[in-house]
């Protein structure tokens, strides 16, 4: 394997990992606030179709990205209403959101099939940085949404662990009753984080339809929403680990084909496809053991609707 080929695999890993990263970051935000939303696949699809429609209509891919975020957020607000206000079962509601999103995006996308977007998110070479050997071609010859994700990950990390807002967010996810008793508005904040999480998933979908593919086709996420859900567990609800995880999962995708193209057939492609889930199971096992030592793990109140009157 030459260095060019390795660089190509790593650069492709970042492209393949970026939609997973956006979706996983959104799910981390939502889950940190104590709401589990399994509708990621549906929100990504609706984001992808609305992003593509608006980008085609306006000729500006950035309006498309914004529309995708809005659409993802709107989808998530359905989930928020059902699970936070009505206290419905979060798993059931999330699964329904996925099925609903799949159908809705197919319906909305009918007129968009077969259209080529006039302008999509193009690759931008960052001056100076892109000529660094190794790192340049891998990290800095990407499109703008990838660069945006480089900024968002550290910002989210700071928000989670270094700000009052992040502390409140984690508090409502760990112990909403305690958070409520010190005056944090649990219902309002859970709404906000669920909707913001949906917006991220929408952008992840738009990355597929505006930068990665770039076209609209029904069901184009092809299960990436579920990998993102697995990735959240893999990353142990941490944005930085989510970044590494998504590039790892993306890299497995990218490597599989390149090994085949190079004529290396040691590993079955079926096995490679299975790897993200195997990694997730392994991390689940490790995380469970660690959480026994009260180090890290799922937010304490994850999946539990908060009811003030039920103490």
């Amino acid at each position, binding site marked *: 394997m030459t260095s060019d080929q390795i660089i190509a695999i790593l650069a492709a890993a970042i492209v393949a990992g970026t939609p997973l990263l956006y979706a996983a970051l959104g799910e981390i935000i939502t889950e940190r606030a104590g709401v589990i939303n399994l509708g990621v696949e549906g929100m990504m699809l609706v984001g992808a179709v609305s992003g593509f429609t608006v980008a085609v209509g306006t000729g500006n891919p950035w309006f498309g990205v914004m529309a995708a975020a809005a659409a993802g957020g709107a989808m998530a607000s359905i989930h928020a209403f059902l699970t936070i206000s009505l206290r419905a079962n979060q798993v059931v509601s999330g699964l329904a959101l996925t099925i609903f999103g799949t159908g809705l995006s197919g319906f909305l996308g009918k007129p968009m099939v077969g259209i080529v977007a006039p302008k999509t998110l193009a690759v931008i070479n960052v001056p100076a940085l892109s000529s660094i050997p190794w790192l340049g071609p891998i990290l800095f010859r990407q499109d703008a949404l990838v660069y945006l994700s480089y900024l968002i990950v550290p910002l989210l990390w700071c928000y989670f662990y270094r700000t009052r807002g992040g502390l409140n967010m984690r508090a409502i996810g760990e112990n909403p009753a305690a958070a409520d008793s010190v005056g944090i508005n649990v219902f309002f904040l859970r709404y906000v984080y669920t909707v913001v999480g949906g917006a991220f998933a929408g952008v992840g979908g738009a990355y597929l339809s505006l930068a990665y593919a770039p076209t609209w086709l029904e069901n184009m996420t092809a299960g990436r929403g579920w990998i993102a859900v697995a990735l959240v567990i893999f990353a142990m609800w941490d944005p930085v680990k989510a970044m590494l995880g998504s590039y790892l999962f993306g890299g497995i995708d990218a490597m599989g084909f390149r090994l085949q*193209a190079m*004529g290396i057939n040691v590993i079955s492609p079926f096995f490679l496809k299975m790897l993200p889930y195997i990694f997730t199971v392994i991390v689940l096992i490790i995380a469970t053991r660690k959480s026994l030592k009260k180090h890290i793990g799922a937010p304490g109140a994850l999946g539990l609707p908060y*009811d003030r009157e039920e103490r």
Partner: protein
Amino acid sequence: MKGKKKLLLLAGVLLLAVFLVAGCGGGSSDNQSANKQPAEENNASTGENNEAKDEPLKIGFIYIGPVGDAGWTYAQDLGRQYLEENMNVETTFIENVPENADAERALTQLAEQGNKLIFATSFGYMDYVQNVAKKYPDVVFMHCSGFKTQDNAGTYFGRMYQPRYLTGILAGEMTESNTIGYVAAHPIPEVIRGINSFTLGVRAVNPDAIVKVVWTNTWYDPATEKEAAKSLLESGADVIAQHQDTPGPQQAAQEAGAYAIGYNADMRQFAPQATLTSPIWNWGPYMLEVAQGVEDGTWKNDQYWGGLADNVVDVGPFNEDLVSKELQDEIMAKKQDIIDGKVTVFAGPIKDQSGTVKVADGEVMSDGDLLSFDWFVEGVEGKIPQ
């Protein structure tokens, strides 16, 4: 308190149920209603003059994907539209029918609605078609790509390997690096046969060229298929062929400044600077023949496998900017040779990847051998996953 909570939960679940119904039904309900109008008009007219002849033949379709997939299902749906235009028929289709017990329900629904002919357009519907056909002996079932028949159920498929051979010739002429990439779908005989015939076409005009194969194990995942094509382009391929139902591989080729060959239907619009042509399905005339046979009562439960001569498969329109007139003529001449029987794609001598002669000079592979293809011919670089 508990009672109120339960009530809220119930309300939530009911609301979800509404969404679910809306989500699932969204695709098919609108086109069914679109087809209702002509039905009502026709009923009204038959009511007036009471002539059975005027009643349109009702035909149902079940599709594996959305009609807008730009590939397999789109090609089948073009056949349905051809029927609507050329015959007094009333068609109904149901999209996104999975290859499980849902297919049996969809087929039953179409039979109950009074369709006299039903096309099931994916391999995995095979056993469900057989089950439903037993229950509705008056309805004719046509199953695409399967191998089971009964009195009222036949199969149909096309010799896609013939146009693939022709596109192989084109790829062999166009390549400069002598490396051609092939994004393969699932390791089944149909896909392997396509790769082999394509490679034979390539090697017929360019014996030095090789065809590199990468498996995606998908039919429909534009991002993954594009990624697979990229990996082939990075390893030196300058023409990309494919077997999936999306234009992902062609878009990868366009971005890399390489050429591509589509599949299923004319795919030039998705990558106008890369797509040379596409081997395409042309179901319309055949479906019309079947429908006419059902109407006249002459239909038989054949296992139909039509080729270029029957116009079921074809080479799609060429990209005039990229493919020279001489090259187009060369391929069209070869097409005529295949139609006339002067050229047979799988005629010996054919060697396998190790160089062993598998089909001796003067021999021709039988349809049985073709339908169970499980080895690659010489010139293919890649392995069939076990």
